[in-house]
């Protein structure tokens, strides 16, 4: 395992939706420049935990968190933290590609613009860099003015990744980013994720265990709101310590 320093630390974290406890005493350290995968059956809390890392759960009424989540040593639920700055630092890619109803260029330039960059040539540069980063530049450079809603699902998802990269985050959260895509687009996104970890720390939620094996450095298995096991991916899949983990990864439930 690498000796990269811990980027994200989850410390004794509980999460409640009203009276329902969705996450129970989660403890997790995710190192820099690695891909961490969250796996587990539907409703196990893996997406909930992911959305806690950029405070998207704040938008859910009745959501309450105790314990701590630190990014670069800073408690992100501290009152002094600016949520909008946090979400700029912690980008997110969603399950369904969700490009905005505007041109490809405007989609990618969206983040920089809302954070105050107006200069045209600076924006041009960011758009090109981000689209290159998402491996999409050569495919779309001649049709940046085309509406992003009109391109294929796989391209839409890569536009969304480019859009997330454009605000220069350090962390990318991916919530089942390939579950709505065909196999070819899926493998393009997976290759991309492995390139991106050079510069970013990536956390990915996936239903697809092969995907976790293919791309992640570490895997956390969740079940009924608890983190059952967390280990380097090879270890977790080769020699699971917990019988529940073994049952899940061998396909006996889920």
């Amino acid at each position: 395992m690498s000796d990269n320093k811990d980027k994200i630390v989850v410390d004794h974290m509980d999460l409640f939706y009203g009276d329902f406890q969705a996450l129970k005493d989660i403890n997790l350290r995710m190192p820099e420049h690695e891909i961490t995968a969250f796996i587990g059956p539907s409703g196990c809390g893996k997406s909930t935990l992911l959305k806690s890392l950029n405070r998207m759960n704040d938008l859910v009424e009745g959501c309450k968190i105790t314990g701590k989540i630190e990014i670069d040593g800073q408690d992100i639920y501290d009152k002094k933290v600016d949520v909008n700055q946090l979400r700029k630092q912690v980008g997110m890619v969603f399950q369904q590609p969700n490009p905005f109803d505007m041109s490809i260029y405007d989609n990618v330039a969206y983040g920089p613009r809302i954070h105050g960059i107006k200069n045209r040539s600076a924006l041009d540069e960011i758009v090109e860099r981000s689209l290159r980063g998402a491996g999409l530049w050569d495919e779309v450079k001649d049709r940046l003015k085309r509406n992003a809603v009109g391109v294929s699902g796989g391209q839409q998802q890569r536009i969304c990744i480019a859009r997330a990269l454009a605000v220069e985050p350090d962390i990318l959260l991916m919530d089942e980013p390939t579950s709505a895509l065909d196999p070819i687009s899926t493998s393009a996104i997976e290759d991309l994720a492995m390139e991106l970890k050079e510069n970013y720390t990536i956390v990915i939620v996936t239903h697809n265990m092969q995907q976790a094996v293919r791309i992640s450095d570490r895997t956390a298995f969740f079940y009924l709101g608890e983190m059952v096991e967390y280990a380097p991916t090879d270890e977790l899949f080769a020699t699971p310590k917990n019988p529940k983990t073994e049952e899940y990864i061998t396909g006996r439930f889920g």
Partner: protein
Amino acid sequence: MTNKAASRQRKEKACKTLVMLCGLLIIALVIVIALFLVVNGSGTFIQYHHSVFEFLFSSDWDPSDTPGVGGGKVGALIYIVGTIYTCALALLIAVPFSLAAAIFLSEISPKFGARFLQPAIEIFVGIPSVVYGWVGMTVLVPFIAKKFHAPMGGYSVLAAGIVLAIMIMPTITTLSADALRSLPPRCKMGALGMGATRWQAIYTVQVPMAKSGVITGVILGLSRALGETLAVAMVIGKTRAFPKGILYPTNNLTAAIAADMGNTANGSEYNLALWSMALLLLILSLICIALIHLTLKKKKEY
């Protein structure tokens, strides 16, 4: 057993026929009314040999009221301008307020909105237009007279525009709020996930994405404003002159028809000129409906 089945089938058939007849009746009624308007409304141009150009672009209005005798003047421009002027002003006032109310309803405070604002808006729709006109006459008109020293005691384009704006706000608000609510949450999440503030997400992503619904609401509101008669007639001042500004009185198509239709001889030039104005209103609302269909057709699926 077979008897029962046969009687059931007869009933089924009778119901089907009845429903179909009702549907056909509605279609027939629409066609008949439209034909009636076309036949009567074209009399000005066919029977009395006026040009469409004169009707639309001249302001000389002096039609003859003796059946069979033409030679008067049928320039309806003042009424047309009055209609456009009051409707445009109404939209100018109503659209920003309605959009704000729609955002409040769908985004800012859905619970409070559903409990208080939505019922209030529904009540608005149910108020008869004579009430709007009367309130306008007793509250708004004197207010405008006092505040702005308007001529004609406050009867004005402004009064008509405000009354119309209040009448069309519920339509625009309801349709815009529905459009905003029907957007999948992932669009909003995408913006918020980039670090956009709630307000930035609303005006840079959500409102633009809901624009076809908003436009539909605006056009529906506009067609209501075009056709509204009583409330406008009560506050517009019914003066046959171009308004020199929003504080001046004028007249519009609907108010002129309503005021004069009973006083003209059937088939006279005057009478048919009023029918032409009615036909013009029908054409305007058909254009509105066509625009709505065009907007909805262009609507994308997200």
